[in-house]
């Protein structure tokens, strides 16, 4: 099957620091691919380069076969690659509904309309409500984003990313900072996204990784040190060394 997202030999330097070195990864449609690794491994940098926030020093990224390397982030988003952020990056003064409604509006021609009041385009609001419902936030629609609990804000992050019907969804530590109960809830919500949604997820919580991932790529100091099925990665001696060495557990 052809890859829906192909990352080829991506390198990113910051002056003397090599944050990503020859990282290659490919994701097939419907796959759930986890990217794991100790802190500082370059995972978020990888996302930043793929989503266009940063330009790569060298390498290629292609989405559905066409290159997206070096395109501005809004252009990449329009082409069907959506992401969430590790730290809640919301429109905090606006309501949850408005956040998602705006996200839904982004990839439509509606933004060009200057003279039609928003309430006369109900399909965007309806879509927003559907998404909020999917992410268990239906009853918080009218609340300003800043008044949501931390966990609810993380859920809102995902709802926003889903609004544009992305072909590939990049989730940057969706459960970071969450309690076990919230984490379980988020995992269930993500699982409900179904097999049509291709997902690449950065995660530290191994329970989440093993619950969701079809394949795992392990990054360490900017390089891929292993890639494959969860069982294969678990058994890989280099991976074990990296995790044992850093004191983080690999056990689910």
């Amino acid at each position: 099957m052809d890859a829906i997202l192909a990352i080829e030999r991506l390198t990113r330097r910051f002056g003397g620091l090599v944050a990503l070195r020859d990282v290659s990864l490919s994701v097939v449609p419907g796959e759930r691919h986890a990217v794991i690794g100790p802190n500082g491994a370059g995972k978020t940098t990888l996302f930043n380069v793929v989503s266009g926030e940063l330009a790569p020093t060298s390498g290629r990224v292609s989405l559905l076969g066409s290159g997206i390397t070096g395109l501005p982030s809004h252009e990449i988003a329009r082409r069907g690659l959506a992401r969430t952020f590790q730290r809640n990056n919301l429109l905090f003064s606006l309501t949850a509904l408005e956040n998602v409604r705006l996200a839904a509006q982004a990839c439509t021609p509606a933004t060009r309309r200057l003279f039609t009041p928003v309430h006369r385009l109900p399909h965007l609001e309806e879509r927003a409500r559907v998404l909020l419902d999917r992410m268990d936030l239906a009853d918080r629609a009218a609340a300003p984003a800043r008044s949501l609990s931390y966990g609810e804000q993380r859920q809102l992050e995902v709802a926003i990313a889903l609004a544009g019907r992305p072909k590939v969804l990049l989730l940057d530590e969706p459960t970071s900072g969450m309690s076990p109960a919230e984490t379980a809830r988020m995992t269930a919500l993500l699982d409900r996204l179904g097999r049509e949604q291709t997902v690449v997820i950065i995660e530290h919580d191994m329970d989440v990784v093993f619950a969701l991932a079809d394949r795992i790529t392990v990054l360490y100091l900017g390089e891929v040190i292993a890639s494959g099925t969860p069982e294969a990665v678990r058994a890989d001696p280099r991976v074990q060394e990296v995790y044992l060495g850093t004191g983080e557990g690999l056990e689910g």
Partner: protein
Amino acid sequence: MNRAPGARAFLPASGIRGGRRLVLLVVAAALLLVPLTGSRFAATTLTEMLVFAIFAMSLDLLVGYTGLVSLGHAAPFGVAAYTVALLSTHGTAALAATLPAALVAGTAAAALIGVFALRAAGVYFLMLTLAFAQMAFAVAHEWAGVTGGTNGLSGIPRPALPAADLGGAVPFYYLVLLLAGLAAVVLARITRSPFGAALAGVRENEARMRAMGYDTFRLKMAAFVIAGAAAALSGALYAYYNGFVSPDVLYWTTSGQVLVMVLLGGAGTLAGPAAGAAAVLLLQNLASSYTERWTLILGAAFILVVLAAPSGLAGVAARLGGPLRRLRAANPGAGPLPPAPSEGAAR
């Protein structure tokens, strides 16, 4: 209310709330009826207020809705004023000719400034709007052959409309009222549109909007140009109102004064800045009869507004009365200078 949350409405979508509706009706009635008393003083005072109300509302689109604080909004205003002055004093009296010309000139000035100023993020934007407007001032000041230099251009006749004599204060007032009303309605509609909602998103978190897929540079440019067009309208009307145009229309104090009007009235509400314009002009008229130190007083007012009432009059009104709740203004500090404008480098 089923209004789109987050959109700051001038007239809420499905009907205006009780108290606010009353206030607006009273104001509208006053604007329509008072000049009928024939008082020239009333007509000219209200004309000036309307002209600056348009100016202030145009800046509010930038400041309150998009989160772009421009310190050079005098540029489209002054360029349009000079266009009217030049055309009128050289034989072109027809409004149908001067007004479009002024709009085009002022909007073009805004677009040109926007191209440069908007590429720069945060603080640089502020400085560039200031710098380019001052450049326009310098040109008007030096190019005496065309602009009359420090003496400016005087003797601007009233505009000529077929079948209407706008020579008197009252007829001219009604023209200005009509145009001001149109501008207000157009701006209000824009703020309540999907485009307006996108502008609010840019104000709240531009980086997130880009990640959603919005070309935020284009959005900001569009806002800048629309605001420029509205400012140009007010500039053109100002030239007719004043009968005289000097480089002062392009000076930083003019940009500062309209910003005070917006902040005092309450950014992000459209109605607030319009009221702010009236308030500042009243204050100016009052002060000028006692002292020449209006600039000093304006500065003091500016400082006071920044220190004490960041949401301006609209914010104060909101705190006072339930029905005026929805006049809550965008905090002018919440948007324009993101705490870490790292996007400045990563364009």
